[in-house]
């Protein structure tokens, strides 16, 4: 039976990301951080913009949700084309490399962002394990 694939940026995909992250990323692994991050995917295949909102409290992943329309405030906002995020989610591209190429825009305190980047990498590594249809 073929493995079930989740449609990228669908509610099911976000739920699966949350489930796997909660299972694999302990508060210790997440350095007990409290923060929020919004990844804004522009130019999705249907032409829309969709965002993923991540919220962490003391290293616990509180929520991961798909947002369309009005965007919530987050400590860090990362904006890039859908294709860039898709490459990161497939594990083909590191977030840091994407930021340094200028194809991805970060809003937020860079010092804090660099401190948190290994933790975000861990999150992306888990996301990369999810069978996803782009």
């Amino acid at each position, binding site marked *: 039976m073929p493995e079930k694939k989740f449609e990228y940026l669908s509610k099911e995909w976000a739920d699966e990301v949350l489930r796997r992250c909660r299972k694999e990323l302990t508060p210790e692994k997440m350095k007990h951080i409290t923060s929020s991050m919004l990844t804004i995917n522009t130019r999705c295949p249907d032409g829309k913009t969709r965002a993923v909102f991540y919220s962490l409290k003391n290293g616990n992943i509180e929520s991961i949700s798909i947002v369309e329309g009005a965007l919530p405030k987050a400590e860090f906002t990362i904006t890039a084309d859908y294709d860039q995020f898709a490459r990161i989610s497939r594990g083909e591209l590191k977030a840091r490399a994407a930021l340094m190429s200028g194809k991805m825009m*970060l809003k937020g*305190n*860079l*010092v804090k962002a*660099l401190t948190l980047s290994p933790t975000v990498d861990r999150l992306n590594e888990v996301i990369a394990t999810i069978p996803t249809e782009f």
Partner: protein
Amino acid sequence: MPEKKLTKEDLYFIDFPKRIKSIQKEMAKNNIDVYLGTRLRTLSWTLDAFCPWRSYIVIPPEGLPTAITFVIDAARVADESWLDQDHILGYGPMGGQDQISLLQMLIKPHLKSGKGIIGMETGMGTYLPEGHLTLFEFVMLKAALPKATFKNAHIIVDKLSMIKDEGTINRFREASRIVDIGHKAVYDALKNSDFTELTETEIAGLAAYAMRKAGSEWEWSFTGGNEIASGYRTGLAAGACTPATRKKLKIGESLMVDLHAMFKCGLGDHSHNYFLGKATRRQLWHARNFVDLINKVLGAYKPGITPSRLADEMLAFAEERGFQDYLVPGFEHGIGMMGDEWRIGLNDGPFDYWTNPDHVYQKNEMLICAVQYACPEENIGFRYENPILITAKGCEALSKFPLSIDVI
């Protein structure tokens, strides 16, 4: 563990929020919507931290400013500054985090519909790390904020920083005390060892070690830290800049020891001179001229005097004594918190960005009394530098190392 932040009771306390408010008051008077400071002197004066990398401070019309520095140093600057880490941002080569993107993000909210006046700091300096806004930065900001108007506004900070407050003066006093410790270390080394084994760089280093032990943060001068010259190098024609070399000290030569220490962005800068081993009658004649001149200069500084009046008096004295050919005709340079090293007073003289010779000194203004005596044909020269505080009736020389030219 970071050093504790200073309170009003501390000797070295400076009211930085008050400084920001005073800038904001001047901004309002000059219709400036937002001030972009880039000069090292502005950064030291507003942040209370040394910013060795290209840095910026964006001062809004009210509220706290935000500074931006190279990301590798942002946490350290935030640790030392009175501003917290939310107001000291790091820039780096990342989307949205480069200098121009961050400046645009900080400036834009203070421009109504993108329009308004941005105060900037541009000009010309003899001092290389001055930090004026570069042409490239200006062009990029102009492109990012096309409706905004840019106005050169450094005079605001120059005016406000001219008269020194008590905390600043005390920081300079402490930096000068540390420099005196450096001079004592050099004196002891020359006296108690075979100085012919020492090089100029070693003299610079042993002074630096003594000063660092006493709390100096670094030998701040961009002219190579501690400037040491011996022999012919002390008398270079019209010269007053001598980064130390590997030249060994020699008996019968003169030695110039110009030390620099920094204490909380307050600067120590004092030069002392020696004859190594012996001195000829002619050399001692030069030395007497120099010491007498310095005493005369120190006696002349007071509120109301101008650089040109002082120069006239000193050059007349030199002429009377017959050493006018050996005097480099300048007797001071400006000084303030780290980065403020060159021009005295405001940019209001006959030559742009040079000291106005008719600048009138006021109480609590500070300068470096800087006198260079150079006789190239005899391979001899001396330098005097000392931070001078203009007091109500005269001046206070902050470095207390005894004025003399020691035969050692």
